[in-house]
């Protein structure tokens, strides 16, 4: 494909950036009350047509959109990182129980310890994400055949159902938490103020930097542990760094929008397909940023769709993504290579 090879990586990123920008503008313009695009642009530039428009744009739609971009990028990165670290095409913070771990720790700290602020319980989210991830990894590795994609996925699913049951047990005994949990657990971008985004942004940024620092090492890890070690990579250190990045990215995201599944599963596959067409190949120095750009596009698109299709109510973005991700997961499972590992 000569034409496809002409797409250079940088051009690809610029193109994705443009798509993301358009989606951001749409996300600000569309909603229960639509705002014409020219009014949106004027409000963003600081010359709003009316106080009402200014208010809706800056206090509702911009924070929501910024949250979508932040959370999407974090989940896309986390998914790409987990798939590379475990060399497992089924890996994703949602499937492997990391999100459920963070969610359980948050609900526990809110209901039992009475923590009320995001910056209070975000540390619990990190602890929960880390612990669940490590336990699932160890469970998946048990047995004679070692770590296989199917075993790891099943261990993650088992862990997820355990943590979800415990979470609902806590939530159901604290009725006042139920209503908030119902929407939070479905993965919604609605009703979050601008300061929420600013609070999680440092954690996501730190996670993203750690992830990017891993990228060259992930390329050698893809060749197998032995090859990576003989290339001078310190496997333990890479894994630790990767796990730290996944923990930061997932914990921060879950504490704001709840355990969104599948975004991290679908996006890296799309990124790899794009990278292949662009002639880059499986180079994680490109795959990670591509995932970080693609995931917010999908999350924003799902959020916008959820606002439009069921008016007057909203469908949470997480629900739509799970609906799309299910068939994708099944398609992955059906692939011969995977099913016979």
């Amino acid at each position, binding site marked *: 494909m000569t034409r496809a090879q002409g797409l250079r990586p940088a051009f690809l990123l610029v193109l994705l950036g443009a798509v993301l920008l358009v989606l951001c503008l749409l996300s600000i313009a569309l909603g229960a009350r639509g705002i014409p695009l020219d009014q949106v642009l004027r409000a963003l530039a600081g010359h709003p047509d009316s106080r009402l428009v200014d208010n809706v744009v800056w206090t509702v739609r911009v924070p929501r959109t910024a949250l979508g971009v932040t959370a999407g990028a974090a989940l896309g990165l986390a998914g790409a990182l987990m798939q590379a670290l475990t060399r497992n095409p089924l890996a994703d913070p949602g499937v492997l129980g990391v999100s459920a771990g963070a969610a359980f720790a948050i609900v526990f700290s809110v209901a039992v310890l009475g923590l009320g602020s995001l910056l209070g319980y975000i540390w619990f989210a990190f602890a929960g994400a880390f612990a669940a991830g490590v336990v699932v990894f160890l469970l998946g590795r048990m047995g004679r055949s070692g770590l296989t994609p*199917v075993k790891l996925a099943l261990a993650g*699913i088992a862990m997820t159902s355990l943590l979800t049951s415990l979470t609902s047990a806590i939530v159901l005994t604290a009725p006042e938490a139920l209503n908030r949990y119902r929407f939070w657990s479905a993965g919604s971008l609605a009703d979050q103020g601008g300061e929420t985004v600013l609070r999680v942004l440092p954690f996501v940024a730190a996670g993203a930097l750690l992830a990017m620092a891993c990228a060259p090492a992930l390329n050698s890890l893809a060749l197998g542990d032995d090859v990576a070690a003989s290339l001078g990579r310190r496997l333990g250190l890479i894994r630790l760094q990767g796990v730290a990045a996944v923990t930061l990215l997932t914990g921060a995201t879950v504490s704001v929008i709840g355990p969104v599944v599948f975004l991290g599963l679908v996006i890296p596959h799309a990124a790899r397909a794009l990278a292949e067409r662009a002639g880059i190949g499986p180079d994680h120095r490109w795959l990670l940023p591509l995932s970080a750009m693609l995931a917010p596009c999908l999350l924003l698109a799902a959020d916008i769709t959820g606002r439009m299709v069921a008016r007057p109510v*909203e469908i949470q973005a997480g629900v739509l993504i799970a609906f799309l991700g299910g068939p994708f997961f099944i398609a992955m499972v059906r692939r011969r290579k995977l099913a016979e590992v």
Partner: protein
Amino acid sequence: MVRTSGGTRPGDTAAVPMRRHFRLTVPPVSGVLRPRLVAVCAALLAATFLVFCWGVSMGDVPIGLTAVMKALVGQGDPGTLLVVRELRLPRALVGLLAGVAFAVSGALFQTMTRNPLASPDMIGLTEGAGTAVVAGIVLGWDAGVGVQALGLTGALATALLVYLLAWRRGTTGYRIILVGIGLSWICTSATDFLVARGGRFQAQAALGWLVGNLNGRSFEDAVPLAVAVAVLVPATLVLGRLLRTLQLGDDVAAALGTRVQAVRLGLMLTGVGLVAFATAAAGPIAFVALAAPQIAQRLAGAAHPPPVASALTGALVVLGGDLAARMLIPGTELPVGVVTGVLGAPVLLWLLIRVNRAGSGG
């Protein structure tokens, strides 16, 4: 997937060699004659009866255990009789029957797929039935067709989809499970969509039912389930005999005169039917179909989930779970599904480790 030809299979307890499993199961009445199985069944029956009566005795007006037993056979003062018969009996009956239905169906699927993880609540049948029922509640279809019909349609459609999507020159146990998990995610998000779409009261009704709940059940819920259990469980037991020849492999079974495809289809349908009726009556009670047959199998020391002991274990688990859910925190009524979920998930993890250790984890 590790392809084993004969020898051990993932579904067998640890690694029971095929030879020993022959000796245990081939004589047609062997299951009934094994003293340990009979003892286990008797003990389970007694425990189930006790928990059943205990459940009936609990409530705003506590009734003594002996008074409950008397009321069950129609003795006692009219007030007690009314409370027991009209208010508390339906709840306990739905619990008992749902437990039986889930567990028998689980035993069936686990034996058929030779994989303890391939129970109906793992492969999305319960969620499929749930989505259809919630669609009925939210969109108002339930008035015309009935919740049972909707549940049955949902479960059947999901079963068909799992089978078709997992099919690829034969199905392997793990592909069925993972495809089923993917489908159950789709069903769950569809259910979430319906709940968000529906009105406040419908959403509340749907949510209350979705956790797996025995609160406020009436004879309207109990009777269809009772009919289904009365028809489908004996059918399962009869067909289950034939299932044993299927374990020898399709060719041997056919040579022995079993109509392989017909038996397998019949078993699938009875299993799906049991799940559908139980889900329609009690909601998707988590993990009973997965855990009860496994517990029964270990209690009886059998190589496969024994159907009768599984049924009794299922009833005991649901009734006991409901009892625990009501007693755990005074003043609040946890849905039974939460209790079985919290207790069942470790069973799932443990099964996973066991299957992995057997070396055939896939």
